[in-house]
């Protein structure tokens, strides 16, 4: 019985693993003895010195091990990497435990870990996201050159139903909330010493519009353009992108306390009139009119608004179902994976962990909170002028920020908390879509001024 037990132990996978690794280690240790080491490298002083003592095999092992060690993550460890890896793990934890926007937090969290694995930077290994020629660098080009944002806007257009906005156009004014966030963050960044183009790019975090923030920062804060005083603008794409996407993902954490604080029980119970039926003709006319009108005002936002309305035309035309399905399913999935991973990986600690990045985060958080509050207060002000049957539930004002569709979902959940039969999702989509349009127009205007 005992012998059988022992036999089992020796055959267990762990034991086999030990045997295999043991053999590999022995081979590694005795390799210089079995296979003679070639002559000493004349350029290496250590090798020359030790070869004089006649201990070349041991030196070979030592050099090999030293070289191996110098390439490991342990040798290149920097405390910032650990901080960022913990942040990445926290993102993944939040996505798994509380399901806060897992489609964004999982790729970003994993990206943060991938981007912060320490490695030897001077060895031209071409693995870091900021090293030209690396795979991650190629993928990051979509962020740095502003390629992904228009693709995301295309998918948003193909997935969004503008019916609620068309049936109740006055809800469009709740999109002004996002403007408050943008311009408060813009002025705040100027106060903190950022230059005009950098401040404009930072401003976009205020409305939690990730794609627009990336697009604007790739144009204005890309570390290439020259300022009027001859200085080069800072490259803030990484911090801005990660801040904007973090706030997008953390909408369910940031917004509810502000919503509860600024609304009374009575206001939360307001039942909005069901939206009227919107005809197909109206649904097709809206993106066409919207495209013409908004791009004539801000042509610089054409890549974003053009794609947004193009996506919506694909959806609403009814004759391009295949294209609309491709855009709203596989394409958005691919772009989300790429943008999430690369934005996360762009937080390489030695480049990302600067006081400025922290400031951008703080500024973004404050302005996003103000934008949320602004939306709720705008709805309250509008209620003063509306008939009792047309009153707006102020909770949908918080959806005026551009985090689509998360802020609309938050409005719905907060509405259901107050009254389990009061569904606000459809109504909240109107300010949410308006917020996207507003922030893209604002981005176009800022680009027009500053490019």
């Amino acid at each position: 019985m005992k012998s059988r037990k022992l036999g089992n132990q020796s055959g267990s996978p762990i034991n086999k693993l030990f045997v295999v690794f043991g053999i590999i280690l022995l081979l590694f240790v005795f390799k210089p003895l079995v296979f003679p080491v070639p002559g000493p490298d004349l350029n290496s002083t250590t090798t020359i010195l030790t070869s004089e003592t006649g201990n070349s095999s041991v030196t070979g092992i030592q050099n090999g091990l030293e070289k191996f060690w110098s390439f490991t993550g342990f040798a290149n460890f920097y405390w910032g990497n650990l901080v960022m890896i913990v942040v990445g793990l926290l993102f993944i934890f939040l996505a798994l435990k509380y399901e806060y926007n897992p489609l964004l937090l999982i790729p970003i969290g994993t990206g943060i870990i991938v981007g912060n694995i320490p490695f030897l930077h001077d060895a031209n290994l071409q693995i870091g996201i900021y090293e030209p020629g690396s795979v991650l660098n190629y993928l990051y080009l979509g962020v740095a050159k502003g390629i992904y944002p228009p693709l995301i806007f295309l998918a948003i257009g193909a997935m969004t139903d503008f019916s609620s906005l068309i049936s109740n156009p006055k809800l469009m004014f709740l999109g002004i909330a996002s403007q408050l966030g943008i311009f408060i963050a813009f002025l705040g960044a100027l106060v903190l010493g950022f230059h005009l183009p950098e401040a404009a790019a930072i401003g976009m975090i205020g409305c939690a519009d990730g794609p627009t923030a990336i697009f604007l920062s790739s144009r204005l804060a890309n570390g290439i353009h020259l300022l009027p005083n001859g200085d080069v603008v800072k490259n803030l794409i990484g911090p801005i992108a990660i801040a904007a996407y973090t706030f997008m993902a953390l909408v369910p954490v940031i917004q509810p306390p502000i919503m509860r604080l600024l609304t009374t029980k009575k206001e939360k119970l307001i039942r909005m009139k069901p939206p009227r039926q919107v005809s197909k003709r109206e649904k097709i006319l809206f993106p066409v009119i919207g495209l013409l009108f908004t791009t004539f005002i801000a042509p610089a936002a054409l890549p974003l608004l053009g794609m947004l309305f193009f996506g919506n035309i694909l959806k609403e035309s009814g004759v391009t179902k295949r294209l609309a399905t491709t855009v709203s399913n596989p394409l958005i999935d691919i772009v989300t994976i790429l943008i999430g991973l690369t934005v996360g990986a762009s937080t390489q600690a030695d480049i990302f962990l600067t006081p400025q990045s922290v400031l951008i985060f703080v500024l973004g958080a404050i302005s996003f909170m103000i934008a949320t509050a602004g939306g709720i207060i705008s709805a309250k002000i509008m209620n003063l002028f509306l008939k009792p049957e047309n009153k707006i539930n102020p909770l949908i004002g918080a959806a005026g920020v551009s985090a689509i569709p998360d802020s609309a979902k938050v409005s719905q959940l907060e509405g259901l908390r107050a009254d389990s039969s009061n569904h606000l999702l459809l109504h909240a989509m109107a300010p949410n879509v308006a917020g996207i349009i507003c922030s893209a127009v604002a981005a176009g205007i800022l680009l027009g001024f500053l490019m």
Partner: protein
Amino acid sequence: MVLCEQISINFSNIDNPALIITVVGLVAVIIALAVLAFVIGRITNIQNFFVKIKLRKRETKSDPTEEKPLISISADENAAICTALYLYFTEMHDEEKYVMTVKKVSRNYSPWSSKIYGVMSLSKRR
């Protein structure tokens, strides 16, 4: 006020160009929204206007005692109609025979699925 070497707070940084950008940006976006909301709001009226003209033309041709058709249907009614149609179409099945048949599946010989190897191989030690 200096927070650290790289960061300082200075309100004088909000100079004229910054204020101009802020004010013009805000006003332009608000005007754009207002006009867009106005135009979108009018689409329905324009559409209804044309529908009414069409209906009037039809009325003159057809019997005046005929019931007037509705221009718009509320969202609730529409949802109810759509649900009914959906349920009707998804409930539709082909006629089934109610006769169960067991079809024998014949497999080609392959050494990978041969029974003999399974019999010959030694039982796994546990």
